């Protein structure tokens, strides 16, 4: 091969690599945010497809449970939003047959589930806790939730808010949790009622619930999700 032709050929082979430069788009400030959001959304889309409604989270023996005093507290605002228990109700609205205020007794009248499951924080730490409560799916049955609705949203006494896909809400380990370690929830852990979802990351397990809505559309995702964290974050 003539050396000119060799050089030409080498140059052509080098130019074929120009698609690699497309990744440079991630370095352009105006494009970066949108591209990363798309990437995150694609990951969430995949995660939703990987979710198997009947596949259970691993449960653990009582001997493997982290001691209660070593169960970390992560609050975004206050440890105790000062819920007055006597007046507390869960206000239900949206695509349900029986909207209104539900008392803790009504929720506790549903079959009680106790489970030792792993709680994983997005920061990276994990603990095995013991949780008790009513299945969210049982409660959705009680309030006559529209089974075709796509989401559950909750509001909290500390202005935290969250939303959940219906498949996860119907999962048999997803609890409206009113007990930890066989005792009523403490204020720091979200008394009187919190979400406990072993198949989701920690920040989805909203505390101090005050409102629950069944809905077909989401107008906001969740406190952390609206700042750029993953919405689905199934484990």
């Amino acid at each position: 091969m003539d050396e000119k032709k060799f050089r030409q050929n080498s140059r052509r082979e080098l130019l074929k690599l120009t698609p690699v430069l497309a990744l440079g788009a991630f370095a352009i400030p105006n494009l970066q945010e949108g591209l990363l959001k798309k990437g995150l959304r694609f990951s969430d889309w995949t995660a939703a497809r990987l979710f198997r409604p009947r596949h259970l989270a691993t449960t653990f023996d009582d001997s493997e449970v982290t001691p209660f005093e070593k169960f970390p507290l992560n609050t975004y605002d206050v440890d105790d939003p000062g819920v007055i228990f006597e007046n507390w109700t869960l206000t239900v609205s949206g695509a349900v047959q029986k909207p209104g205020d539900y008392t803790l007794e009504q929720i506790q009248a549903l079959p009680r589930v106790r489970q030792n499951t792993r709680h994983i924080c997005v920061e990276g730490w994990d603990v095995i806790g013991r949780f008790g409560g009513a299945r969210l799916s049982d409660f959705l049955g009680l309030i006559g939730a529209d089974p075709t609705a796509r989401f559950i949203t909750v509001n909290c006494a500390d202005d935290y808010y969250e939303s959940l896909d219906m498949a996860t809400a119907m999962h048999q380990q997803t609890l409206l949790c009113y007990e930890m370690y066989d005792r009523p929830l403490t204020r720091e852990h979200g008394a009187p009622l919190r979400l406990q979802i072993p198949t989701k990351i920690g920040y989805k397990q909203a505390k101090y619930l005050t409102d629950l809505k069944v809905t077909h559309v989401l107008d906001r995702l969740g406190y952390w999700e609206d700042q750029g964290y993953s919405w689905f974050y199934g484990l």
Partner: protein
Amino acid sequence: MSGVVVEITRQKGKDEPIVVGRGVYEHPFIVRLCHWLNTIALFVMVGSGLQIFRAFPSFGAKIPQKDLLHWPKQFAIGGWLGGALQWHLTFMWIYIATGVVYIAYQIFSGNYRQVLFTHRDIPDVWPMVRHYFFFGPKPPTREAYNALQKQAYTTAIVLGILSVATGFAVWKPIQFSWLAWMMGGFHYARIWHFAVMWAMVAFVLGHLVMVILHGWNNFVSMLTGWKKDPEY
């Protein structure tokens, strides 16, 4: 077409062309494309991974928390945990896709023979170690990679697969509970993911040193595919 050897000739006037060098086509296009896309993806994965690690720089309990190391923010990507997760969850697809395409291409083209360390390479390991580390004579070069190179590249591919497997065990410890179980559960999967990352970083550092030592032609071959004046 990898392995094609040509003589590079120069034509002066009407004389017979004279041979001025040789060229060998070492790296097919798909290999080069995947190599560079994967390089960028790996860089982002390590940088954003370290930023994610900064949120809880420990492998013990949360209470009490004993930090393993404080990784400086300037050497991490994403700025904050949420940002780093966006980078990590975006570039992991590029990392995986280039890895899958690369491995599939190597298998179906037969090009893997150039890279894969097999039992046939074992006798060549000691002479190469002697040459590199103990001033032994240089063993004859017969192909693109010597036994130690093959061993290093094969290890890197295994590390790549392990980084994805441990990553999925951390990301989806319930849906991939069998993966997490193989690694000793979520808690240990996170440790493995971290360890595999450092092993990969160690490979990259060694790789860079060897590329620098082995000269310009070697580096150019990963860009153009052609290596000029190979030793074999």
